[in-house]
């Protein structure tokens, strides 16, 4: 009984998500006029890197990368904390 309720809820969520996937902008024709045209056109001049992705990762969105590095650091500290050898 409960299982079927969960399945029903799952199906509703599935419907919503698939609808979202189907009603996106068409694959291959994204919105190009805002940030990305700027990045592709200007990153070589502004950041002097050939790789636009790296320019974004480390310059335009460097703060995200700081967050990413923090996540990794946090996870390593967490793993060290969890798998530490206990003295007791």
């Amino acid at each position, binding site marked *: 009984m409960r299982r079927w309720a969960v399945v029903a809820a799952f199906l509703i969520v599935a419907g919503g998500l698939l609808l979202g996937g189907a009603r996106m902008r068409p694959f291959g024709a994204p919105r190009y006029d805002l940030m990305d045209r700027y990045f592709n056109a200007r990153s*070589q*001049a*502004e*950041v*002097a*890197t*050939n*790789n636009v*992705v*790296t*320019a974004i*990762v*480390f*310059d335009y969105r*460097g*703060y995200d*990368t*700081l967050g*990413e*590095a*923090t996540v*990794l*650091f946090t*996870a*390593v500290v967490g*793993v*060290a904390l969890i*798998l530490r050898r206990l003295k007791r």
Partner: protein
Amino acid sequence: MSVVVKTIARILLPVILVFGGYVILHGHLTPGGGFQGGAVAASAVALLLVAFGPGSVKKLKAPFSILEDLGGVAFVLLGFLGIGTTFFFNLLAGSGGLFGAAAPIGPNPGVLNTGGTVPLMNWAVGFKVLGGLGAVMVLFGLFGGDDDR
């Protein structure tokens, strides 16, 4: 593992590390960057662990965690470098000094000496990822027993 695997691991370890270094070094020119190169280099730790057993990586735990801390500190300090204007401002790009050459516009083979702080950040993140993922591998490998054949 058998002698074959160990020998091949001996040959491949420096190759993987050099390749990781290459990926980090050319992060602003070819696909790759700090994280990818660090992950590639950390795979060398995984290879070390699997080929030579947990005993071989026992001593690496402390160096890796220190490496990771240093990488993180270096990354934040590189962010602080631009604090004269804004945090994460790319102070070195186009300034003419180290990593300050301007990139030629348009398709080109790529010049290594470009990118401003981006290559430096690549290296900081690369060492950080190498240290962090290596430490994770070592911690997982060493957890629960020291038995090594």
